[in-house]
């Protein structure tokens, strides 16, 4: 706990949110919409943690229909809401549950019964119809079921929330790390924060501090001597080149490792695994887990091991385990946890919201802000189930062809900087200006720059040149972000490099080392 330091400049707000994942920006937006002055701080970029590293499934609830009915009910309710309020982040792919030869076909009956009981629309279709819709899926499947799963773009979701919150007066501060919480007697009154970009330190005073740090929530709570036992469950994902499937394809069995393959923009993603890790910042990708996902992928889509694997990454689920002997945890459901530290440890002005999943982020935010209202003068109604996110005002669901459609009227209007993801020069330049960023990795998250088959082989040189030409960075800054990008990219590339993607990687080596000679750049 920091001693009060009057020399620090400070900001004031009703609500301070810690954490810039989907939960954090959801809380900030909800609070701002209810008229509270709100500040959000995130130690890195928005969605840099778990949200930006999940598989991208907007759950129908089908996956939980048998195992966790209350989670299933929440999922289908939130699924219906987000299709309207976050339409621009949702691609309506539909979901397919299939019984492969490795799965008990009778589980399908339990599945249908679970879906019926929880209100998740599910319909069995003939195997031939399933294979007509998904020709690459294993032809030996025995049963198939349709559910309203969808693909959710986590970065668009988080930035849509953030921009919406800003439109309602909130301040969103990425790259601001909480160094300490300020506790006055039995009350958390704010936080001591450092800008990771400028190094500047300052205080933020708030009536309520909401800890939305996900798998890192325990670290934040500890700053106020509160115990939040969040375990980090690491899950591995692999992005494959092209959309091997057009729907979210799940194995029809109890949820397990490597049982879901879903389309995400121009690629598709297979997930996932579940391994406890002691430190959410230490996520090492193991070859065994890669092999497990590739083998499971082969069961869903024969030939999977010959397909191009683009990138592997791990995200950490926040798994809340309540060890405190306090009855009133306000545990709304088993799927997430809202902790009021005044009832738990006698510390007022401090709430923790953790656990849960991206699909239910809005519901979690609503619960957290409802609880905050009690400490901010009484209830105010939540409107996030109705008010659309920034970018989703027209309620038009995202389609894979959106960028192409925007380009088509004047196909030769300007340069395409990233061919894989159809990013134009003006779009790149506008984003650089709007975000005022000097990092190619930030731009990647905003535009999906370099996330296609060549993994930046062509566009990263162009983007570095444009960043420098725009005056955002000097030569050393441009060179450094280029080198940082290559190093960061390699972390996700090297564990899965084989087959045709290794050819691609060697071409990239030739470009960066053979043609451009980035190793000898002055930095």
């Amino acid at each position, binding site marked *: 706990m920091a001693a009060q330091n009057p020399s620090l400049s400070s900001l004031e707000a009703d609500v301070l949110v810690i954490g810039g994942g989907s939960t954090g920006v959801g809380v900030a937006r909800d609070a701002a919409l209810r008229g509270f002055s709100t500040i959000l701080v995130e130690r890195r970029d928005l969605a840099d943690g778990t949200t930006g590293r999940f598989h991208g499934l907007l759950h129908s609830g089908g996956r939980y229909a048998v195992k966790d009915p209350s989670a299933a009910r929440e999922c289908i309710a939130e699924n219906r809401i987000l299709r309207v309020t976050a339409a621009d982040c949702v691609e309506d792919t539909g979901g397919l549950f299939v019984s492969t030869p490795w799965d008990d076909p009778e589980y399908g009956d339990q599945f249908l019964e679970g879906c019926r009981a929880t209100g998740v629309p599910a319909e069995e279709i003939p195997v031939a119809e399933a294979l007509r819709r998904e020709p690459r899926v294993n032809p030996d499947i025995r049963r198939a079921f349709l559910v309203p799963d969808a693909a959710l773009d986590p970065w668009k979701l988080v930035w849509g929330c953030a921009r919406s919150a800003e439109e309602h007066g909130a301040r969103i501060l990425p790259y601001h790390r909480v160094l300490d919480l300020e506790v006055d007697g039995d009350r958390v009154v704010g936080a001591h924060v450092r800008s990771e970009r400028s190094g500047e330190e300052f205080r933020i005073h708030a009536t309520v501090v909401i800890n939305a740090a996900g798998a890192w929530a325990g670290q934040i709570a500890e700053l106020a001597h509160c115990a939040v036992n969040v375990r980090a469950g690491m899950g591995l994902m692999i992005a494959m080149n092209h959309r091997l499937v057009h729907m979210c394809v799940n194995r029809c069995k109890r949820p397990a490792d490597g049982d879901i393959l879903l389309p995400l923009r121009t690629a598709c993603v297979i997930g996932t695994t579940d391994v406890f890790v002691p430190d959410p910042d230490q996520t090492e990708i193991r070859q065994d887990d890669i092999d497990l996902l590739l083998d499971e992928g082969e069961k869903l889509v024969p030939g999977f091991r010959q397909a191009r694997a683009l990138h592997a990454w791990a995200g950490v689920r926040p798994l809340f385990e309540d060890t405190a002997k306090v009855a009133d945890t306000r545990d709304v459901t088993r799927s997430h946890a809202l902790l009021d530290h005044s009832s738990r440890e006698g510390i007022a002005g401090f709430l923790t919201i953790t656990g849960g999943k991206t699909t239910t982020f809005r519901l979690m935010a609503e619960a957290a802000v409802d609880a905050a209202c009690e400490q901010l003068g009484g209830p105010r109604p939540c409107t996030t189930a109705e008010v659309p996110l920034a970018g989703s005002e027209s309620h038009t669901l995202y389609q894979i062809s959106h960028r192409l459609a925007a380009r088509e009227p004047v196909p030769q209007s*300007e340069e395409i900087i990233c061919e894989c993801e159809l990013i134009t020069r003006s779009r790149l330049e506008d984003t650089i200006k709007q975000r005022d960023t000097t990092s190619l990795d930030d731009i990647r998250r905003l535009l999906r720059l370099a996330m296609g088959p060549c993994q930046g082989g062509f566009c990263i*040189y162009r983007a570095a040149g444009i960043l*420098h030409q725009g005056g955002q960075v000097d030569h050393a800054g441009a060179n450094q972000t280029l080198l940082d990008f290559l190093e960061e990219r390699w972390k996700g590339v090297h564990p899965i490099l084989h087959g045709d993607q290794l050819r691609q990687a060697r071409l990239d*080596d030739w470009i960066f080392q053979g043609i451009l000679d980035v190793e000898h750049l002055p930095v």
Partner: protein
Amino acid sequence: MSYDTVVVGAGLAGLTAALRLSERGHRVLVVARGVGATHLAPATVDVLGYLGDTQVASPAASVPALVSTTPNHPYAHVPTEQLATSLEWFCTKTAALGYAGSVDENLLLPTALGVPKPSALAPRSMSGGDLRAGGRFVFVGLKGFKDFHPTLIADNLNHARLPNPIEARALELTPPSSRLGDLSGRVIAGRFDTEHLIDWLAGALEHGVDLDERIGVPAVLGLRSGDATWQELEKRLQRKVFEVATLPPSIPGIRLSDVLSSALRDGGARIVLGVRAVGARAKGGRVEAVEVVNATGTVSYPVSSVVLASGGFASGGLELDSFGATRETVFGLPLTGLPDTDRVRFTPHYFDTQPLATAGVATDDHLRPVDSSGSPVYENLHAAGAILGGATPWKEKSGTGISVATGYAAAEAVLTSAPMPASEALR
């Protein structure tokens, strides 16, 4: 039609070997899946640019040091005098492009990021960019061409470590209007070939550039007319002009590939692209025929010699599957340089030397692939270029040098073992 030698691969190594054999009377067939990596790389011949972290001034002086520390390097099988001979021969065969330089000293040419990069040879349209003497430079960008960023090039060069001071600046020109807002290097090169874009460029550069400034332009001055355009530009401007290679496809690389392919065809050799060599019919330790799959089926070409120049992982000569197994894709030759365990194929840091980096075939001094006991797999099979193990070409800046030197050396080895080709004897 029968052939004395089948060359597998139409990249720089394959074309070099084929041309050398063809001019010495062999009937040569080149079979390849595609045009080869020459279309991707700058047309410079990089023999050796770096020994570890040290920049190499003279490849001729430094290759022996490389070979002594890396005895399995491809250059270990090329005698020093033959390395020089191969480059001289290469220059005479590519006279249309006017290669400048020698194995004795490296030019320092700016990359499209403004890094001074060592090359032994460069076509004369590029060699004027040699930074060693210092001086004033202007780099010219073309609006609408995304693969060349002159402000970053100039800024980086102004901060580069160079033997003599330089002063670089950037200039952006807007080419005459085109219906295309997204210009590729090929499109611009095509306009130089067909539209006299040179009039516009010479006019735009005449004022605005000082007499003592050297002018760097992206390497897009024409596919067919590239060298002529460059000569004309220097003449009209009375200033030194040079092309700077940038992202693939490489216009100078395509020019080089075209010059070598034309020379081969003119000499009577045959090049067949879009086919895949898949194996050998062998007897008594010799390849008797090469099996080639084309659109209609498998054809068996009887041969007296074979040169394998199918490239490394980038070109499909080597393949790593998802289980960690690496194979040579044409003849299933034994490989060296594989990591001890298939679990660690790559390390987490991009700029480390990767465990799989030096994988490839090992050869004897006749460039014949050998097995683990050091014996040639086939008496009459030779290998050249990126399929050879032991090098880290993109780090050493040695890829094109290895291709020319080993392509030439493989041809010489074939000529030594079969001076009188079968077809010649029949005539």
